[in-house]
């Protein structure tokens, strides 16, 4: 892979990170809003909640949630 190709792939990957991140967060927040009671029950029981997304199941830990709003 030449240096210009490498540079190009890295730029594409950077864009991929931004887009994926935006979409994943939107899906997580939307799920929490729609199923707040269920998420709350999971957090109370296991200190974590499994959020189904188009990326697969994402596990949110209570500590991570607190870190996000800190």
């Amino acid at each position, binding site marked *: 892979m030449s240096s210009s190709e490498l540079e190009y792939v890295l730029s594409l990957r950077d864009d991929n990170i931004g887009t994926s991140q935006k979409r994943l967060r939107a899906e997580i927040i939307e799920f*929490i809003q729609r199923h707040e009671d269920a998420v709350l029950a999971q957090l109370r029981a296991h200190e974590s909640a499994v959020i189904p997304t188009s990326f697969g199941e994402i596990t949110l830990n209570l500590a991570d949630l607190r870190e996000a709003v800190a």
Partner: protein
Amino acid sequence: MLALLVSLLIAVYLLGPNLIARWAADLIVFRKTRVESHAEEVARSIIGAVIPLALAVAWARWSGALWSSGTQRDVETVFSALESDTFFQAHHQQFFTSLYAFFWMNYAILWRLYLIVLLASGLRVAIVLNYNRVWRRLNKRWTRTLLATIVPRISEWDLLFSDMLLPEGTFRIMADVLTKTGGLYQGTVQDRMLNNDGSLQSITLSNPRRFERAEFHKAKSEDIETVTDEFWFNIPGNLFIVMASDIANLNLRYIRRKPLSFQPSEEEREVLNRLLDRLKVPPSF
């Protein structure tokens, strides 16, 4: 004997530094191996060794170590004696004295050469390991392209599946894999195996799940409101290997391991704060 000495000098001056540079590169990236002719191999080694060798010679001359070990006459004596038996017989005693000096002259250059190559390789490893941090500080496209020349001949697949060149923070690479038989799988990329030429051999997914396309299409034809979520089925096990020869296409997505922790918006904070506030209130039965 002369041919033997020249071969030895080529090995220690050209091939040795090249081997060290390759070994250092192999520590950090999966390099594509290319089949090269012997002439190409030697030419590449010469080009790669010219700068460190010139620096090592300049350093040895500047410090005085080179000429304190021997003189140009010693070098000439050694080569002449190895080339001609007559010269060797006539200058037998002088040859061994010059050979000793010749050895120390080479030693004065070689340890400097290998130190320079090791330092340069170490610097290259450090830059590649911190590639993204350096990359983000460079704003002009040509400076970024110039930086890319420092990365060894990396396999395209290694670049895509490795988190080494990703921005700071921990990431996971998610893959949607469509196989040639029509199976759709999803999971976190746990590992990848590459062939010597850098081509993909297989990928290993953790937390894999399979999409039941046939059932989904059937349900969708009956009810247009059908959503895909119910047609993903978890596959037991944590090492799901898909051979590259079976893959029709691949969708890669890079996500943070803590997706909400990175600069949440006000709206996101609001939702999360409400959730955490409710969590503080004991549940009512």
